[in-house]
Every structure is written in C-alpha cells, then in structure tokens.
C-alpha cells in the first residue's frame, strides 16, 4: 500500500495540518496503525508522523510535581527510567509487559492510550496512577483525566485535529506503592486476558488513596470504584482481599472471545486483584 507521510517540525504545525484535513492520520511508533493499514482496516491518504519533532521522546521526572511523558516516548524508554521504576512501578511493569523488545522499542505510551484498546497495558497502570493527558488541538490546549479520555474500544475524547501532547502522572504521596499484573496465555507478544493495576498509599496499618484499574474486562480499561472502596482505609486482611476481588469481579464487564470466556475473565479478575493486593503488601515490606 502507498500513502504520503508528512513530517512536521513542531506540534503546533502538526495540529494545524491535522485540523485542516480529515484523511490524515497521526502516527507515533506505528505499531498499531501500520497493522491496521496492512490489514486494509484503515486506508489513510496521508500519515502525519511525529518522528521529526525534537524532544517528544522525553521522559522527565520533576520532584514534587510528577512524571512527564512525551508523545514519542517508547515503552522501552519508560520501562528503563530509574524514577519510573522506583516511583511509578506499575507503569514500568506495564511498559515491560508490552509485546516484545521490538515492539517496546518503537511503540509509544501515547499511542497505546490513543489506540484505546481495552487491553492496552499502560492504560491500567496510568489510571491507577491518576494520570492526566495534555491535549493540544485547534482550539488550544486542555487537560483531561485519563479516566475521561477513554470512552470505548478504539474511542477517546480526542476531537478532530487534537493530539496527546503530554502524559502526566502526579507525584505519588510518600509511601505509595503500585503494581501492574497481566495475565495472558504466553509470556510475550500477548494481549492480556485480564490485567490489574493497583496503587495505594500505606497509612499506618491500613491503606489509603486506593486506585484499582482493570484491563481487558470491559469496553475500556476501567477504574473499579467498588473494589477500591472495599480496600480504602482498611487493613488488607485476607478477608478484605477476598472481598475486594469479588467486588472487582462483579464490577467488570468482560465478553467472550477466542482468547477467553467472559466467566474465566471474571474469575481471573478476582485472582489477579488478590495477587495485586499481596504484591503491594510485599512491596511495603
């Protein structure tokens, strides 16, 4: 297949071009996009690549503020970033769980979010880390919570000509721990059967500010509010953990497909939530 590639020099220029024509599709690493093009599911007239724009691959941690991820930062870069590993471990784990080394070397976190697959690995981790997205569009810039960005399978709140200019995860409070667990049928190159991301702050004996996200068990990666409430402010006894697992399992909305049945997915949510809980307990030490 043939298409023209446009390589603007700045994000502003990119937004300008994107908002002028409807047949232009934005490309970051291309690992989702080019597969769709090759399968004939997308027939772009033109593709706008962000490749030539300087500095978009930046991953920066600013103490006291948080983590800033540029739209061209790859999974490999994020996964290897020391501050991400130690302060945003769910994200580092999620990025390491993506595909294979080749995919992690070109696929971006922004592309993963914009592609809006319910199984996207970084979406769960970033939901649990309460990430926000800086969007840039013809009407200017706006900031949205990731939870409001993801609308359905392949659907986001991005308007015509709008793009993700930056991903931001706020500095976690002291003693915050997070983890991302992915269940698949093989150890690499795998679309999650279900995934769980959990972030929480250890407070005294209990845990507060609980954020629990579930992947591949609903139309979007979703925050499990009910299960979060079960865990919030509690000492995570075995009983609480079981309750949280059951609550998450009842809250999720999995479907049957060739990868797993809905009932298996639901059961696995329960298992993975319990494992995420013990992992956080373990990290706390």
């Amino acid at each position, binding site marked *: *297949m*043939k298409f023209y590639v446009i390589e603007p020099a700045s994000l502003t220029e990119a937004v300008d071009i994107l908002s002028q024509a409807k047949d232009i599709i934005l490309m970051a690493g291309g690992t989702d996009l080019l597969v769709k093009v090759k*399968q*004939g599911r997308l027939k772009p007239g033109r593709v706008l690549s962000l490749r030539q724009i300087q500095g978009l691959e930046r991953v920066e941690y600013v103490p006291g503020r948080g983590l800033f991820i540029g739209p061209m930062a790859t999974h490999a870069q994020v996964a290897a970033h020391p501050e991400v590993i130690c302060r945003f471990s769910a994200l580092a784990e999620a990025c390491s769980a993506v595909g*294979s080394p080749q995919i992690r070397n070109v696929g971006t976190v922004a592309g993963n979010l914009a592609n809006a697959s319910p199984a996207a690995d970084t979406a769960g981790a970033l939901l649990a880390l309460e990430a926000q997205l800086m969007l840039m569009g013809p009407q200017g810039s706006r900031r949205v919570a990731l939870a409001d960005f993801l609308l359905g399978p392949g659907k986001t709140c991005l308007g015509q000509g709008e793009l993700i200019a930056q991903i931001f995860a706020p500095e976690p409070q002291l003693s915050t721990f997070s983890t991302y667990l992915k*269940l698949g*049928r*093989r*150890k*690499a*190159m795998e*679309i999650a059967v279900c995934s769980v991301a959990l972030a929480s702050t250890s407070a005294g004996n209990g845990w507060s500010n609980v954020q629990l996200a579930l992947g591949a068990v609903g139309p979007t990666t979703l925050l499990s509010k009910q299960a979060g409430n079960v865990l919030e402010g509690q000492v995570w006894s075995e009983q609480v953990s079981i309750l949280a697992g059951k609550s998450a399992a009842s809250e999720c909305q999995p479907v049957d497909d*060739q*990868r*797993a*049945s809905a009932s*298996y997915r639901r*059961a*696995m949510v329960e*298992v993975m939530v319990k494992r995420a809980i013990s992992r956080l307990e373990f990290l706390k030490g």
Partner: protein
Amino acid sequence: MESHVIGISPARKDAWGKVSGEALYVNDVKLPVCLEGKVLRSPYPHARIAGIDVGKAMKLPGVAAVITGQDLPAKRFGNSIADQPVLARRRVRFVGERVAAVAAVDADTAAEALELIKVEYEELPVLTDPVLAMESGAPLLHPKFSTYRNAPALDIPNVAGSASYGTGDVEAAFAQAELVFEHTFRTQVVHQGYLEPHACMVQSASGDSATIWSNNKSPFELRAELARLLGLPASGIEVIYPFIGGDFGGKGAVMDEPVCYYLALASGSPVRMTMSVREELLAANPRHAAIITLKSGLRKDGTLLARQARVVFDSGAYAGANSHPLVAGVRRVLGAYRIPHTRIDGFSVYTNSVPAGHCRAPGDPQVFFAVESHTDILAQAVCLDPVEFRRRNVLLEGHISPLGLEWSGINALQVLETAVMNSGWNQPKASRFAGRGMALTERNTGLGGSSALVTLQSDGSATVVSGATDPGTGSHTVLRQIAAHELGLPLEKVSFSGGNTGMAPFDNGSGSSRVTHVTGQAVRLAAQDAVSQGKDLAAAQLQVSTTEIIYQDGIFSSSAGKSLCLQEVLARSGRAGKVITGRGSYVADKAGSTCFSAQIAEVEVDPETGQVTVQRVITANDIGLAVNPETVKGQVEGTVVQGMGFALNEELPRPEGLPQVTSLADYKLATCLDAPTVQTFLVEGSSGPGPYGAKSIGEQGIAAVAPAIANAVYDAVGVRLFELPLTAEKIRHALQQREGAGG
C-alpha cells in the same frame, strides 16, 4: 566411530547468510517485469457458487488477468488423491477455498480487484464433525470421489482413506482380561508455524514450458504433480528453489503454483504470489484434528493383553495435500509396547474444515497424546509407577513390532531409563503444584529415494550435487560432512550445490525424517564412486592395478609406496579426465528398525489461573549415530517447543466451519520466554539404516511432548484432560468441577 568430520558439529555454512540477510528466499528473486497474484477466498464453509461476476475487476486499471474455475481445465490435483481443484468449480467446501484469482501490477491493485469480484453463493449444510460425516445418510462432500485419481474404493460416506490392522483375537482377550479401560481423546488443528509463508513465482511465456520459483521442500514431487496437472512434460518444468524459511511438514504439498501458472498464462507475464499470515492460518494445510478411542485389556499385574483403537482424522475439505490420506500416525496406537491382541481401525474423513496436511510426524502427536495419557491411566489403575508400568510392557530386542514388523536393535528400555535416570524421577518435587510426567514414543527412520553426484574439482575440492532441500534443518551441512568423510577431505573443501530440478538429480524431498538416511546414503555412494574413479586414474598413472591403490585423506598410494594427491591425479589425466563425477542412488522402502524417544516434562500448575508452566523437559532420543550432534539437539529442542505449543495453547478452531483464529496475535505459538529448559540425551549405538548407522531426528521428538506434559499436569494437580490444548481455562474449569464434586 573414527572420523575427522562425523560426530562433530561444525558451524553451518548457511548460518551467516541467514543472519546477515544475504541468503536468498523466493521473494528475494526479482524479474524485470512481474505481476502480483492474489486469490479471492470463500467466506462460506460450504456453498454452491451460483455465479461469479469479474467484469468490474477486469476493468480496474492495472489488472492484467482475472480467472475463475470456469476458465481452467476441469482437472484436480493432489499428492495422492487428486481431489483439489485449482480454483473452486461450482462448489466451495471450506472457508478460505480459492474461488477466483487476479494478476495485477502490484499487490494493492490485485487486492482492490478482488473486492470488485461479485460471487453469488447459495449456502449448503455444513459438516464439521467427522464422526457424523461418516454416518450413513450424511451428505457427500465429494459425490464424484470415485472418479478422482488415486481415490481408494471405499463405501463409507465422506471417508477419504481407511485402514485396519490387527493381530490375535481382541474380543477373546478382552473377555479374559482382568481389567478393561476405554478412553476417547481429541486433538485440535494446529499450524506448522514456519516463518516464511508459501510463496511462488511462475514464468511461462509460451505455456508449453514453465519456470517455477517455489519454497516447496519437495521440488521434484512438485514438478511431477504440476506436470500431470498442467499437461506438460516434467522436462518442460524447471523448479528453482532457493532457501526455505522453515517447513515442519507444511511445504511439501502443491499450494499456489498452479493458480500462479494460469495467471501467468492469462496475463502473458510472470506472476508472483505470496500468502499472507492470515491466508496461512486460513488455507494452508495444518495438522489433522483427531478423535482417538483406545480400549485396553490388562492383567492386574499391569501386563497389557489387548488393545482396540479407533482413530478418526478430520481431513477437512480435501485430502490431496497428504501422501497418504490416512496419515501414518494411526499405526502408532499401540505405542512402544508388546500387545498380543490388537485391532486398529483408522479413518480420514472429509468435513467442511481446512484441508489438513503434513505436519512434523503426521498423526503421531495426536495418537501418542492418546496412547501415553491412556498408558498413565492404566498404570495408575494397577497401582504402578508410570515408569514401572512401561518397563513391564515395553518392547525388547527380538520382539515383533506392534504391527508385526521385525525391528532390529530395539533399545526402548535403554532410552526410557536414560530419560528417567537424568530426571530425578523419584526425587521430591520442587513445590506443591509441581508435577512430572513422562511419555515414550516410537517413529521409524524415513524411507524414500534419492540420487546424488559428488564432483571432484581439479584443485582437490569437491561438490555435492543433490536435489535435497534444506528447510532450515542443516541437512546440507550433514550431507557435506558425509561426503567429506568418504573423500577424506576437510569439510571446508566440500561444497553443496542444488537449487534447481533441471540440474540437480532427483530427491524425494526433505520430509518424513529421511534426508540423513536416504540422501545421506546416496551422497555416500556417490563419494565412494568418485573415489573409485580416482583410483582408476591413479592406477593408470602409477602403472599398477586399481586394486593396489589405497586412498586416504586425498592421497592415492600404491603398495609400492608411490603416491599422488588428488590434484595431481586430476591434473595428469588429460582434459576429459580432469572431471570426476561420482554417482550414487539409494532407495529404501521398508523400515527395518525404529527410533524411540522418551521424555519427562516438569511442570508447575497455577491452581487459581490454571496456567501451566513447563519448566524442564528431559529427553532421550535413539539416534543410532549423530552425524552432527548439535544439529540433532537443535531438532530435539525445536520439537519440544513445538510440541509444547500443541500441548498447551495452539489451536485453529472452526465452530460451524467458521475460523476463529486468523492472526498470530491469537494463534498462540510459544515464544522464547515460554520455552522450557531442554536437556537432551542422545542414545547412540543401536544401528539405523543411515550412513554409519545413523537413524533420524527431524520428527522423532515431537510426539512425546504433549502426553508428557498432560501426565505432568495430572501429577501436579490431579486433573486429567482428554482434549488438547490444555489451556489454562480448561484446567481451571476441571479443578473447579472437582472441587464442586467435593473431590
């Protein structure tokens, strides 16, 4: 054995080219002008074609030809039963069947043209269950079956092949047996998983001859079948075969070559065709699904007395991709055991599924999953350790093979004990949910025919010319090693040449675990012939009789102590004598021995998710003599990982004939992270038919893997599944059911 080059593992000559990209594959070959061909495939598992309108597609700029079944001679092709049309005629029998084809200036235009072809289908009832398809009154998928070339005379509906074997009197034996057990096992369709998809290119300006580039691994068989189908003399067809990017049995059948030829004729231009991964998963020739029922009678002490087996292979819509419609695995239902009373009935049945074909040890992994799972159940029933049960029943030297063959050098017990001894079988397991399982299998060294040439060059080097392909197995290196040994030359001085059916002598093709044996013997004979021709020349030059000449390490010497090296002999022999071409031909059509494999798998089962992790596989293989031990181990490791994929995750389900898995995202081939540690022990010494006593390894390791894993899962968590693959979901379900039952 004493040799400078046999039993060692030199680096393969092709390795560097494959890593650097220099190695040429079919799609690297470019002609100045070449069209791209693509086929339109049926979206229905079974339908009548009421009409095809190609008008719009023809008019698309860039389209050179559009053809349908109506444009082609009404002929069918197949490696045995010629049941496959080049393009469907009036009826489609599986989702993915070729209905029309287009040649265009590029792949995009060809794809666009396919979208413009209108086909009117009238859906027909779909047959998916081979057992139901065999029942009397079932609609016939091939009403004209009896008119197909090589079709056997059979009168069971939809059966493409069947066979029955037996010894003794099973009924009487069952009546006498203290214990009788019967189990039914099911296995799924899996793809061979080669990296390079089927690809071909055809040039045929006049139509009365054709040059065909193909990655078929049996180019001479391909040529013969194309000659029959296209009505050309074999001498008018030249098949050129560059490197082959993996095969595992899947590249021995005719694929797109005929349709590509007809597109070349219709367009008057060379045409290239490459299957996409989707097409590979949809319409190549994957492994047969099977339903296997085993009934065994035994004494309380564990002695096997009788076995009855019924094996039904799902052939899919066509059987023509197989050299025998009833794949050979059916003969393995007795395992490697002594069973006096037996009865085997095997069937291969047409359904509206993908046409099944050869896949590494056709039939064996299916049948041995059943046999070796069943064996463990029997062992447990008589309270014997699985190893002990096998020890009591295993074939020993002097026993007649289960099908009445006289095998020499039966070392099954030694192979079994080698695996057991190296596995810590009786030691405590690593954790609560760890399990160990074993399996013992048997498969003979491959048979067939091959001719080879060994040419001695005037500088003292040599070239092996053979028609054997090397689909990644290292066979060219092994063949060079054999020639180097016979010629007493360093391996670097022996090259390999082939690649073209017009120039290389006949070879049966790299399948059926035959190359080291069959082609190897042909090369060995050719090298010996070259040496004896050299002796004649040397004798004349040294003025002694040929019998006085001794040849060693490139030097001819007479008993009087005079000697000449190879270069000198050739240099002194005048123009005609400067070339020595040794010839060797070899045919083997009867298996006088077999190769045993024993494997022990160690797994860990996650009882909450049902996931199985295979941690270590200990494997012992009866190899006779390993010409190239690292290559042998490479084959073993490959079979373990491929067998594990079959055991745990790979499947191509088609409920109601509709394919569910059409991408590699969903076809769960194991990755390197999933691969277990493999410890390989080569058991040498029981001589095979190959050069220097070599047996085979290409397919021998694969069948033991799934049952070893299934038995290990049982050992770990007490769950016995009768249906592959052993997915996490199925295992968890079984665990839950057991809990629900209070067990």
